[in-house]
């Protein structure tokens, strides 16, 4: 097996991160220093983000038979690395104040990022499986990082048991596919589907179904969503910045690549199941979000409905370029608003040691104490609910136009009802921000020192970006529409 220099270059984001992991491990073995570890991981992540520019010239390219890199995977890789960078930034202060064993956090984060990237560029079932496991095992460590706090271990155990059982199922699915095709390459799967177009093999479809099931567990689509609110509640908000964005984006990008084939070969069963799942996710997620008092649980439920909206992009008949744009734009908006929201919750918790800012009532009257943070939350929540002049609206606009284009009447009605319920539940939080503050909600003690001002600046940039891209979305549209996958 010969690996050319070009292939090595194409692999460089992955390699840089691997190198960073090794360097950090060596540092830990030598002497523990939180700041150095932080710096190392930041440099590693930034370098791997910059190396994407170099990779852009070599794509599309196959690296051995395991990986396949094209413009599509570059886009999602950059989104994931961005999310990891922001998570690093926000975790610095949190970890410095709270923990003795601080360096392992970055190690786990980087390992999970490597898992995400390898999942995105996977071209082989084994990479798919290893990537999924490489995402979820370090995340398990991250979830249980605050093992002293109340719900943390519960969340970790819940995530572990469910995730492992689903992994086993997906492994079984891969085995079923292997039993038919005799190869683990994606292309052989496609080949098998093409030649048995009229009567697809049942075992093959069962295998695919099991893989899709494991994807929908990771994305918390309706029947497999049970873990989401509890895990969100037990996890610290800094980890959630990563967990809610990077893992889901990575899984979705692969899900999209595989599922778009099932649809384009008109496997009717999958389409019907998917439609039911979308409708129930949208309704259920939005409806349950209405009754939440904990803001993390709320965001967990809202992410169920967000991915419900997003899955609509898979239900297309012919022109998959359009749904590619839908996915890109929607994920960009999802990334920005979720990073912003969880970063903000983390920042506020670090501003006041006695409060965790997890209940919605603790945000009461924030506007009167700290107008800048409350306007950031307002912009982010409006973007999540899809109100014009935010990037969230552009995403919603894309999905609605897809629904109109494909004439999904029922889905359209569900979409409208769901988003009206959704807007109401987001608005409830926004209203809390502008009520008169209660005396004992501990917000008067906000003091911004130098590092915290940097954090506020980062959040401000994110919210301005949300607004700017909402008003002038051409930039994102151009990037997204130019990065289409080249299949196998």
């Amino acid at each position, binding site marked *: 097996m010969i690996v050319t220099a070009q292939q090595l270059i194409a692999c460089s984001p992955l390699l840089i991160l691997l190198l960073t992991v090794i360097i950090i491990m060596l540092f830990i073995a030598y002497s523990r220093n939180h700041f150095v570890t932080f710096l190392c991981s930041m440099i590693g992540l930034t370098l791997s983000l910059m190396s994407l520019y170099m990779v852009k010239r070599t794509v599309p390219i196959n690296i051995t038979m395991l990986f396949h890199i094209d413009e599509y995977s570059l886009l999602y890789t950059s989104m994931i690395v961005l999310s990891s960078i922001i998570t690093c930034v926000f975790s610095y202060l949190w970890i410095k104040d709270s923990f003795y064993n601080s360096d392992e956090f970055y190690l786990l984060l980087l390992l999970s990022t490597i898992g995400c990237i390898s999942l995105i560029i996977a071209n082989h079932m084994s990479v798919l499986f290893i990537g999924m496991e490489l995402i979820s095992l370090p995340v398990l460590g991250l979830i249980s990082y605050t093992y002293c706090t109340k719900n943390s271990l519960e969340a970790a155990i819940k995530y572990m048991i469910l995730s492992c059982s689903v992994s086993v199922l997906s492994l079984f699915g891969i085995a079923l596919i292997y039993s038919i095709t005799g190869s683990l390459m994606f292309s052989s799967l496609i080949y098998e589907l093409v030649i048995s177009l009229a009567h697809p093999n049942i075992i093959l479809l069962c295998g695919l179904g099991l893989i899709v099931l494991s994807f929908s567990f990771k994305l918390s689509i309706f029947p497999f969503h049970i873990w989401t609110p509890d895990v969100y509640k037990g996890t610290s908000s800094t980890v959630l910045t990563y967990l809610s964005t990077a893992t889901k984006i990575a899984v979705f990008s692969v899900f999209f690549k595989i599922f778009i084939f099932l649809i384009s070969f008109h496997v009717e069963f999958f389409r019907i199941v998917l439609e039911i799942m979308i409708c129930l996710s949208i309704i259920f997620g939005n409806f349950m979000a209405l009754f939440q008092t904990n803001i993390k649980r709320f965001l967990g439920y809202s992410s169920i409905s967000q991915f419900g909206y997003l899955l609509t992009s898979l239900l297309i008949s012919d022109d998959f370029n359009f749904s590619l744009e839908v996915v890109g734009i929607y994920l960009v908006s999802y990334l920005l608003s979720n990073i912003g929201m969880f970063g903000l919750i983390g920042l506020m918790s670090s501003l006041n040691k006695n409060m965790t800012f997890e209940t919605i009532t603790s945000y009461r009257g924030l506007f009167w104490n700290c107008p800048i943070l409350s306007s950031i939350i307002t912009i982010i929540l409006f973007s999540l609910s899809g109100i014009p002049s935010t990037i969230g609206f552009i995403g919603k606009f894309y999905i*609605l136009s897809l629904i109109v284009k494909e004439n999904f009447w029922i889905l359209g009605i569900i979409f409208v009802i769901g988003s009206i319920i959704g807007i*109401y539940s987001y608005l409830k939080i926004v209203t809390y921000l502008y009520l008169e503050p209660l005396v004992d909600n501990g917000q008067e003690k906000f003091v911004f020192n130098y590092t915290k001002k940097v954090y506020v600046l980062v959040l401000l940039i994110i919210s301005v970006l949300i607004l700017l891209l909402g008003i*002038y979305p051409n930039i994102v*549209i151009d990037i997204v529409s130019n990065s289409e996958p080249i299949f196998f």
Partner: protein
Amino acid sequence: MLLPIFIMIPFFGGILCWMFEKYNIKISHYIALMIMSIMLILSVALSLYNSQIVFPRMYDPYWDFEYNSPWISRFGITFHLAADGLSVIMLILTSFLGIISILSSWNNIEKNIGFFYLNLLWILSFSIGIFLSIDLFLFFFFWEIIIFPIYFMMVLWGYKVKNKPMCVNRNFFANKFFMYSQCSGLILLCSILFLVHSNYVSTHILSFDYDVLRNISLNPFLETCIMLGFFLAFCIKIPIVPFHSWLPDFHTYSPITGSLDISGILLKPAVYALLRFNIVLFPHSSYIYSNIFMWCGVITIFYSACVSFSQTDIKRLIAYMSISHMGFVLIAIYSFNKIAYQGIIVHTISYALSTSALYYLIGRLFKYTRTRDMRSMGGLWSDIIWIPGFSLCFAVANLGIPGTGNFVGEFMILLGTFFNHSVLVCIVAFSLIISALCSLVMIQKTYFGLCSQNRNSILIQDISIIEIIIPTILLVVLIFIGLYPNIILNIFEFSLNNIQTIFLNSILTTRL
């Protein structure tokens, strides 16, 4: 570049007000006033320029002013602004009421005055955007975005009820308004997308442009569906009876200037949009459903006039009366008659003026008596100088007495509608009695009758000069329109002709 300036000036002016707040509070006042005066002068200049050139072209784009630049080229969305007489008259009214709003908030807003003016000017800027935008996406954009400044205005400066649970809080009603607007917006967005998509399917031109979509021919079922979507969206904002419940609550809990704005400015975009989009884009189905819509209007008129009787809060009473008047407008829109159309504009304008004046006077009254409940008022006539007299004038104008603009508007609407729908007009004419009764009850309970116990019977003399100037200006304008309505009619004559020709043509083809 002329038309974007109209949107930009108040937009950036608002930001200026906000920035200069910290130096001196008075500066924000003067900046806001200056900006709206510039706007008024500009829009009047536009109308003068407009009336000089009249050249009838039927199928060409008939805009007097146009601005077009690409925006989101992926969807064929352009930043397309255009103005004809109809838009210009709305511009004049918006900027005029803007000045009145600024003047009326002169000494009343205590906290965050810069941010208040930011919101106020943004409301004006976005509503001007609604009147000028011709691209449907742009229209929708302004239609939705105008909600935010209103929402913040209501949440931050609204009427506060002390020691009451959450459900009667102003935030609750601000949310209610927001939800209604969002429902309206989502329905509108879906309908616009359906329209654009069906245009794309038939012609393979992906465009949100009104001028392009105007020539579309749809199959009847689809046209009906889309038309109903548009109608529902505008209906919620006008509002028509089953969807009206946000308006009285909104008026009750919004600040005085805020409700002055919404009565004057926010009800008009929906009327404008019905005229501009619903009629022109879907002439056939509008014609088929016109009877049903007109009866909706009749129900609106009678229902809300009756409900306004039972109100004890003056502001709610006026709010219900304004819903009732919107029923007239709906009837006129679907009467397909040119005189009625002219009536709509005159009626909308003069109604906006008289209602704003009434809200303003109630705001003053509230300042002196600290109540809006009519049960605890009474016998105020001799205690407060000026205000009762003005209130009487505007209440009488509101019920449409000859000599005021309201009379001209109502008369033209009824006259125009009578040609085709005589029975309906006969029924509607009875509502004038109810609305007259409402106005009189309001005046009687507030200013005449027995003095109630719990008011301080001090003679209130120290009324500032602004408090007299504002109602005087409004009254003068109202009477001027009443006596010489041609000045308004001339401005939009030509553009109304255009709208009317479009559906007359289509009705002819329908009948064939």
